[in-house]
């Protein structure tokens, strides 16, 4: 184990951002010290990165299937997908049959697939591995999320409380930052502050008193900063989102899955020009230890259809040139299947990068099925190379500062001018 128990305890506590414990008297100081050190990545203010987390460990081998390699069929006879059922990308690999919509985008040349993504000394714990992906490494010095550190580089003097937006009920740890918290939105309808329906005239003064309760008294309690910052962000961003919602009409019918709804919400915010630099949405359920064939089919269909609708909606609104989407999952799954028609925790897996600015195609190196360790694949592309690619070549940010290591070579996916 590379991470000691003590460090893991520390890192699991680190899901609670350190600033959350500061009393609010320190809060302004924290905020201003960060404001004074922008690294100038305000480049491309009209570009958005949308991150789709496939939580639970997506089975990469059944997502992009190496059907010409017999060893694939030998290792997992009960979950392998027959070559004839796949959506062939070339004479070696094919997409899972449930992803016909993504295959259409592949044919249009706007889908990139990076193969063999992972990291050294794979952790097989969901939580440790997620933590590594979310913070950007195993280092103790990497506090907060990698996207949170990107937010920290932005000048926030002009924003409306939206630099990013996460769909759901929980702030994804990769977005955590000591700045004004990134809004987390479940639905437009729920994202507003209610007042006493009998006395609408009192709504404003009551809301003012509420905000005063948060900002007026410096408190020594832990979480004071968090509460103070959050109430302000919630109030401002909810008003902006309600306005944007009045103008938005989706150009396509989104699937009625929660991922579909989530991407629709992000589309609404992007089309409404709320200043979202990074959007985040999660789909769970990829931990397919048993009955994988049916469950994985549903999951990949959900991903494929929702991404397709989102892409078409952006296109119809003339925003597709401004948005790049990337997926990730904390690990792939064991090459050898288990006896319950499922797969246990594994290692490297492919991920998707999608958008009009994307040079479609396969990237990275396919892990060798003849070179396994404990029935797992060896990774070929470090996940931070993918992060560096979207940070440098899409968001125009310095990956060195954000990832805390020497500048990594980027993949030529977004390098076209």
């Amino acid at each position, binding site marked *: 184990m590379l991470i*000691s*128990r003590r460090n*893991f*305890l520390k890192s699991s*506590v680190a*899901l*609670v*951002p350190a600033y*959350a414990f500061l009393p609010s008297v320190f809060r302004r100081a924290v905020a201003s010290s960060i404001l004074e050190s922008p690294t100038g990545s305000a480049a491309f203010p009209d570009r958005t990165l949308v991150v789709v987390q496939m939580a*639970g460990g997506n089975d990469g081998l059944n997502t992009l299937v190496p059907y010409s390699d017999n060893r694939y069929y030998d290792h997992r006879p009960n979950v392998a997908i027959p070559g004839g059922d796949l959506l062939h990308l070339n004479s070696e690999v094919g997409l899972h049959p449930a992803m016909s919509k993504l295959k259409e985008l592949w044919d249009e040349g706007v889908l990139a697939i990076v193969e063999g993504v992972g990291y050294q000394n794979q952790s*097989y*714990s*969901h*939580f*440790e591995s997620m933590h590594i992906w979310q913070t950007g490494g195993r280092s103790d010095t990497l506090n907060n999320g990698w996207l949170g550190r990107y937010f920290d580089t932005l000048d926030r003097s002009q924003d409306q409380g939206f630099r990013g937006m996460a769909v759901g*009920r*929980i*702030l994804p740890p990769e977005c955590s930052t000591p700045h004004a*918290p*990134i*809004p987390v*939105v*479940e639905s437009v309808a*729920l*994202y*507003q*502050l*209610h*007042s*006493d329906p009998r*006395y609408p005239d*009192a709504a404003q*003064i*009551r809301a003012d*008193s*509420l905000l*005063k*309760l*948060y900002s*007026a*008294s410096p408190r020594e*309690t*832990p*979480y*004071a900063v*968090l*509460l103070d910052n*959050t*109430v302000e962000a*919630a109030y401002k961003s909810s008003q902006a989102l309600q306005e944007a919602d009045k103008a938005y009409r989706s150009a396509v019918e989104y699937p009625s899955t929660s991922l579909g709804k989530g991407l629709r919400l992000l589309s609404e915010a992007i089309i409404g020009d709320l200043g979202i630099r990074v959007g985040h949405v999660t789909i*769970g359920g990829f*931990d397919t*230890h*048993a009955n994988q064939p049916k469950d994985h089919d549903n999951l990949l269909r959900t991903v494929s259809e929702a991404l397709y609708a989102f892409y078409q909606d952006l296109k119809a609104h003339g925003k597709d040139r401004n948005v790049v989407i990337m997926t990730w999952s904390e690990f792939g799954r064991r090459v*050898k299947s*288990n*006896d*319950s028609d*499922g797969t*246990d925790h594994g290692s490297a897996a492919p991920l998707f990068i999608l958008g009009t600015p994307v040079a479609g195609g396969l990237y990275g190196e396919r892990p060798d099925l003849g070179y396994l360790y404990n029935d797992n694949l060896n990774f070929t592309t470090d996940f931070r190379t993918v992060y560096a690619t979207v940070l440098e070549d899409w968001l125009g940010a310095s990956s060195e500062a954000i990832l805390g290591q020497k500048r990594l070579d980027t993949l030529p996916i977004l390098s076209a001018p």
Partner: protein
Amino acid sequence: MRMGHLLRRAGFGANEEEMDRFLAMGEEATVEYLIEYETVDDSALEKRLTGLDLDLEKLRDLQRWSLLRMIYTQRPLQEKMVLFWHGLLTSAFKKVGKGPYMLNQDQLFRRQALGEYDVLLKAISRDSAMLIWLDSRVNNKKAPNENFARELMELFSMGIGPYTETDVRESARAFTGWGLKKKEFLFRANQHDYGTKTFLGRTGEYSGDDIVDIIMEHPATANFVCRRLFTFFVHDGPDAATLASLVWTFNDTRYSVKAVMRRILTSLEFYSSKAYRAKIKSPAEFVAGTVRMLGIETDGRPLNALTDRMGQILFSPFDVSGWPGGAAWINSSTLLQRLNFANKIATARGRSFKFDPLQVAQDHGFNTTAAAVNHFISLLLDGQAPSQDRQILLDYAQGLDGLSASGNPSATVDEKLRSLVYLVMSSPDFQLA
């Protein structure tokens, strides 16, 4: 203030009448009352729940049932422990599915609320919801499924670190054949691997129960369980000496959770300023606690959906690790839901869900704005509010003088009194446990 803290942490807060009763009993007797809950009659709660005709195989009804228990039980620590175990030894309805499973698991937590931890671990490894949730029921000797074995060590007992990937694979073999038939645990001998396993440095023909016994003897387990209890009930940073004394108690009493909880609730740390308001209320604590403290009568119908929106879907946490808690409870979305819940309570004028602060004012004979402000700060915030907060509330509510005399309240009195309660419930300190 100490009593308010105790009843909030070891339960779900108290209404006025309860608070008076416990203050009269004193702290020591109250702790014993909470811990020795088996001597407390809770039949009124069971009667109330039976009267609602709920279908506990359905998620919505089960959530209502659970929140109503938190609100109306006379055994608050027992229900608090059930919530603790549910967040630690997690299973979720979304995979386990409709049926008696999640209810049975919840009842197991209730029976074993303060029992011995090895007994609970052995019971949970046979629990039908868990057998489905972590795939034990399909763990066969030919190609074992590691899901339960890994989480048993990582999430239920030792935490990551003390074991290797080989330990995961070996212990998965020990649990092969633990199946489910007719919704109950069944040992399928033909699917069990009777071979020799090497686990945490020991070798033998281990069964699943042997694996639990070996795990219990590993020092990381006592440490893990005591730390989880301390951080749930006290604060996030136990010092080494405190933790060591809890670990000693745990091992000395052969894994008695009751003994550890008695130590925690009578410790200096529990009542220290480091612990006071040092935790964010979970949505269940926020919702159930508010209704309980205000003494509102409800069949629980609006409450489960509101708890969901605040980020805690009871009986269906997002993943195997339960709820991360702490700062993760608070973001722009969940905070808006908390504020809107406060608004819903403060403006509850309906017949089936009603809160009448004017009745409260008249019962107490308030004659000044200050008396009303004091009352709700005392009831909801242990009487502890910074002077700035108190002033903001007084400024907003001014003009309530003489309110209890007026038979029919004016619109102003109605608005101000309800908004006062809203503001207290929306204040930052009320979000804290």
